[in-house]
């Protein structure tokens, strides 16, 4: 075979075909009844996905599209005809012929009770989503004892590093941070749930301070925390000083200035300063996850 010379780099290569993608596996469709309506969904769809695609707003706390469902918060429960117990919509798969009620009195009572138990024992002051659900379901946490009487998880805030604080008085044990630190995102395994029952808590290994733990400060746990228990130190300090004002804040999507991955940074600014950085879940490259540089490496902008 004769040896051909390398292509002449001075000439552009001709246009080739468009990329071809593997065919999507066609799932069988099944029919279920949602709040009396017939709905057709693909096999393998969860009841939560089915409800959301039918325009039914089902509350969730421990669920996130990018994490494996752990079924711990029980706020998304729905009633399935023929099932003794309520089922978690986030992980229960739709089955042909299933009749589901997403907003029955039994469902509303259960959701209300979950919210009351949470809000009577946990500080939900920086959890706007929970507050909204409490209004929606008419939750009255004071039923379980006035403030100071009910057992709570109140404890001092842990401030052991420059980047973020852990205020476990605000923790509802939804496991999202544990999942984001583990196989669902970061694979660092710096935190896990320790203890049993009311003593259960999120902890580093041997409860050491973060700088002595395996933490790499990606902050992906902050990104998924639904209650503000995990918070940028900048935000925590500003809130304490009464300076945090989201009505004066602007969010701008841009691209991280560091490596070549190209993560989207949502830059939160207040009074011409960056106050925190988040990343949208819908972003196709890292789906809301960042590393320490992207999430925290902007301090120099404020120093100028």
């Amino acid at each position, binding site marked *: 075979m004769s040896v051909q010379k390398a292509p002449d780099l001075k*000439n*552009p*290569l001709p246009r080739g075909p468009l990329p071809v993608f593997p065919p999507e596996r066609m799932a069988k469709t099944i029919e279920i009844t949602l709040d009396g309506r017939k709905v057709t969904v693909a096999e393998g769809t969860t009841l939560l996905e089915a409800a959301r695609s039918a325009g039914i707003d089902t509350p969730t706390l421990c669920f996130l599209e990018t994490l494996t469902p752990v079924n711990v918060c029980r706020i998304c429960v729905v009633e399935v005809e023929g099932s003794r117990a309520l089922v978690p919509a986030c992980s229960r798969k739709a089955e042909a012929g299933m009749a589901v009620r997403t907003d029955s009195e039994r469902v509303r009572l259960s959701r209300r009770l979950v919210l009351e138990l949470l809000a009577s024992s946990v500080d939900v002051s920086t959890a706007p989503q929970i507050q909204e659900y409490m209004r929606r379901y008419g939750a009255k946490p004071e039923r379980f004892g006035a403030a100071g009487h009910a057992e709570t998880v109140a404890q001092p805030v842990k401030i052991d590093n420059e980047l973020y604080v852990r205020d476990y008085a605000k923790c509802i044990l939804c496991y999202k941070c544990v999942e984001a630190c583990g196989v669902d995102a970061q694979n660092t395994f710096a935190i896990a749930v320790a203890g049993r029952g009311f003593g259960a808590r999120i902890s580093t290994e041997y409860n050491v301070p973060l700088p002595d733990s395996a933490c790499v400060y990606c902050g992906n746990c902050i990104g998924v925390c639904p209650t503000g228990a995990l918070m940028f130190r900048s935000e925590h300090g500003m809130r304490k000083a009464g300076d945090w004002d989201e009505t004066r804040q602007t969010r701008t999507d841009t691209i991280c200035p560091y490596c070549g991955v190209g993560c989207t940074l949502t830059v939160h600014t207040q009074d011409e300063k960056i106050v925190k950085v988040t990343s949208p879940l819908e972003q196709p490259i890292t789906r809301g996850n960042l590393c320490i540089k992207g999430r925290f490496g902007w301090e120099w902008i404020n120093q100028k």
Partner: protein
Amino acid sequence: MVDPRRTSSAQWAERWLGLNVGSDIALANAVAREILAAGLQNREFIENATSGFEEFRAHVQKYTLEHAEKTCGVPAETIRELAHGYARAGRAQICWTLGITEHRNGVDNVLALINLALLTGHVGRYGSGLNPLRGQNNVQGGGDMGALPDRLPGFQHVENDELRGKFERAWGVKIPAQRGWHLSGMFDAMERGQLKALYVIGENPAHSESDQHRTQKLLEGLDILVVQDTLMTRTAEMAEVVFPAAAGWCESDGTVTNSERRVQRVRKALAPPAGVRDDIEILCALARAMGKDLGQPSAEELWNELRALSPMHAGMSYARLANAQGLQWPCYDETHPGEQYLHGRLWERPVIGPLAPFSCVEDVPPADALDEEYPVRLTTGRRLDSYNTGVQSSRYASPGRREETLDISAEDGKAWGVVEGERVRVLSRRGAVEAPVRFDAGLRAGLAFLTFHFPEQVATNELTVDAVDPKSGTSEFKATAVRIEKISGAAKG
């Protein structure tokens, strides 16, 4: 995972091949030979889409597994497993970064990897390919925009009269018809006295270039050095003129291109501080001062000019970039979806365009040879929380950040009588630095590691060698011969 250091990524790999620094071609050629010996090559693809196969087959015959084991320090059986695993995989990618390219034969290293993809057909198909991982948020975009010595925007070759003519007509100027100098060529030209004025935008060569003594001497010898940057870098401190520039990612509008060729929008979130101007504004003001009025174009207007001149960017309007969360080039028109992978043309029969050539490349050891005086191999890299010369990353508090350390194996530490935390002197043929020692279980005897994140603390690039790949112009940052000395006592190790 192929890396001289057992990095945290290596800990996640099914196999780790801890090869000797600079023995990449010996490994790749042995993998090729093994694939051929086992008959695992993709005959259809080789026959129809490639050229130079027979010569290549003959060339790699001498690269036996035994030879590779000796040269690379990796067991022959592990190399055999790699060859079989790669060839048999339904989809396989080779991803690499500066460990391949920052060598005096970096281009040959890349060609050796390309050979493997051509041999197996792991290119031009979904999920397969050759993937050079970009280390900076817009190093790809810089190339896209023609910040290369031989290319105009869209990788259009400056020595192609037709392509150059298109730009000359659009801009109404004559463009030099020959390629310019790449970075290391520019320093050589300074040495010869041919390059006397330098305008540096957003780079810190005084700290980032190899053989820092030489670099800084040459920068000092310029008639004029102009630096445009967001912060006062070491290079800016040496400049006659400094233009303070807005931060491209949050004080300015524009685009960047990531490692997968995805062009994405950057947006202004903050006004720059007083006296600091946008890059475009600075360049246009400078042009005006030099007698050419370029107006005051917006970032989007300039982008649309690029789209008119660069076919691979033509379909990327700002509106589409925002709606699609970025588009991957090439994107030829506004209905084109962008391309997730390249080189699909090699799977058309007959192939569209030229065949893909095999390259016969030989294993060449690093330029900075180990000997009795300099017996330790130093390699350089990054740490997670820091970035390049630390211009940005040294200005935020990172709980995990240590001061710069010379990382060595515990075995070497014991042999040389040094303990963790002890300051030692590191000497190469070009310079010497001092740093405290840290033991790293990911390093083996004879291998040391430094970053260049803290150049004021440890000027790592005073040690590195300026042996340059003549094809790419990149220095061999990854392979320096050093000696470690105790500061208190006699020479060891």
